[in-house]
């Protein structure tokens, strides 16, 4: 197996450093932990890694109430009690009441898959620790049926985090880490072109100048990110706005800035 398995796709431009990290994690069979500003394409990365490796993607979106065991399997007690009451189904067969979670699915697939654990920092502070064994050994035990699920092929695990909570050291030790830096102008041009292939050079330059100008404003609560830039350009094109004719203001500011304070701040400084 060659080392360079990933180098972006036709719809996802990855920097060399990011591709390298993906390849390292792939070769070492370690989970890849991705951090970065919101909107820099952390979740999209998983979809595109799966696509370019020709693997299935299984996503596990973490919420604040998510528990580690839910990702492995759930035992549907209510359905079983219900069936026993009304005589539907074979109640003796516990197996049919066990539903595998995303991680359980990923481990039980015969082929190697990409498992995305999205926004792991949303969950309880102990959550990552509860998954240490499963991520290391890639196996787990179903108590109700006394079954052991062992991964035939270690899934390629991608984990994203927004830095809301600090992750435990023991968990970090097992991961390969990559921080997605905010793209520079050149990379950003490539990225925009992937989404808007027919954009003119002039418009693109103007957009980026405004966009980076906006980003460089101090004390913004949330600086606009790549995904917002792409949306903004989409809005500009749909509305057919010519940037040079709007007299220096930024049209569709709401697609770029998401809090009133930011809009107010920028308006006060005369940018919009």
């Amino acid at each position, binding site marked *: 197996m060659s080392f360079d398995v990933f180098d972006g796709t036709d719809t996802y431009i990855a920097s060399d450093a990011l591709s390298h990290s993906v390849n390292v994690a792939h070769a070492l069979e370690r989970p890849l932990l991705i951090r970065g500003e919101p909107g820099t394409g952390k979740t999209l990365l998983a979809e595109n890694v799966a696509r370019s490796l020709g693997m299935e993607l299984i996503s596990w979106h973490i919420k*604040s109430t998510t528990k580690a065991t839910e990702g492995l399997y759930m035992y549907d007690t209510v359905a079983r009690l219900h069936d026993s009451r009304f005589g539907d189904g074979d109640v003796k067969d516990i197996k049919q009441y066990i539903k595998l979670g995303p991680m359980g699915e990923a481990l039980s697939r015969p082929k190697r898959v990409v498992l995305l654990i999205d926004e792991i920092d949303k969950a309880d502070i102990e959550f990552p620790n509860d998954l240490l064994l499963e991520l290391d050994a890639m196996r787990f035990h179903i108590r109700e049926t006394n079954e052991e699920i062992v991964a035939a092929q270690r899934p390629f695990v991608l984990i994203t985090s927004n830095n809301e909570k600090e992750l435990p050291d023991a968990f970090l030790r097992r991961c390969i880490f990559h921080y997605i830096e905010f793209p520079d102008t050149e990379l950003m041009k490539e990225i925009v072109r992937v989404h808007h292939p027919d954009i003119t050079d002039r418009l693109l330059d103007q957009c980026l100048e405004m966009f980076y100008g906006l980003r460089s404003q101090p004390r913004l609560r949330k600086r606009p990110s790549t995904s917002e830039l792409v949306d903004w350009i989409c809005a500009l094109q749909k509305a057919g706005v010519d940037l040079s004719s709007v007299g220096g203001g930024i049209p569709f500011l709401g697609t770029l800035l998401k809090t009133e304070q930011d809009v107010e701040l920028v308006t006060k400084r005369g940018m919009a």
Partner: protein
Amino acid sequence: MLVDFLFELRRHKLKITTHEWMTLMEGLSKGLHESSLDGFYHLARAICVKDITEFDAFDVAFLSYFKDVHVNALQLSKDLLDWLQDPKKMDQLTDEQKAMLQSLDLEKLREMFEQRLKEQKERHDGGNKWIGTGGTSPFGHGGKNPTGIRVGDQGGGRSAMQLAAERRFREYRKDVILDVRQIDMALRDLRLLGRDGAEDELDLDETVDETCRNAGDLELIFRPPRRNRMKVILLMDVGGSMDPYAALVNRLFTAASRSGRFSKFRSYYFHNCIYENVYEDAAFRNKVPVADLLAKSDRDERVVIVGDALMHPAELLDTGGALYYYHHNRTAGVEWLRRVAHHFRRTAWLNPEPRRYWSRTTIEVVASIFPMWELSLNGLQAGVRYLVRGGQIPKLDAA
């Protein structure tokens, strides 16, 4: 040789452990650095650095280590690669490389590493020791003692482990600096679980009972999930003698104010001692009369005060117009403190000042009013335990 790079990284306060180092070795043996220094840089950084804030330290370490060996880097990684593939070619290596080998015996490191892992799992549930180390792993004393791993010695594995563990513990004792995660972990215990709210959790025991009572006709019983009912008021001393501890207090505040942690959380600021008013902001703009605060607070709310309790005795003991004039201060600070302490069932004062400096200062007086703990990991845990379960109030002379 390359292992020095590990120590260079650790010298720059990066928490690199054997785990990462072994992964890096594995990566090198698979050629993931693509035989270039750039490749090595990215590989090493992806494996060794887990936080954006540490990237800079990594760069500094990388620069200082590789500035001289720039040209040799290729050869170096090749040598290492050869060695990894055939560890028996010892006699072909230079003295320097042999020395490196002695400190990096692959099998033994693996063995020790596994041992350590096992130990960590066992102790981890127990609590504070592992959290408190802040990444000073048993192997990790490299920063101060480059040969500290003691791998090559006869039967070195176990005794080195014990030795390392001892040293780690000693270091931990000195290390009272808490990070947000440690505080988070300690505050986790600050809870009173109770069931209220929407009933959306199946109560299996009740369901079985009710179904039996129903002669086998299924009767599903739901109950609300358990939630934390703890209400907390945090009072923080800011400014003056508290300035050195501002970052620490800030971390405590960050962890405590995290949404959803307590069912009710309020925080106020004061300077040196509590008088008529406390303030909603650290700039002392929005004042809240303490009398109002007390009137509006339930006795069962828990009060956590963070402050050094160090002040001029007059600030604490005298009423306004006495030796030391404090404006509007018609009631002595000590009296206000007593009122707060008596209103609430349980309070805890966390003091960042090391315990050995407590005696013969105003701290002693304050500690006779509020149960006081040092603002360290142990102190915080003991304070939380008291707030939840009550029990022994720490005695000052026990210090």
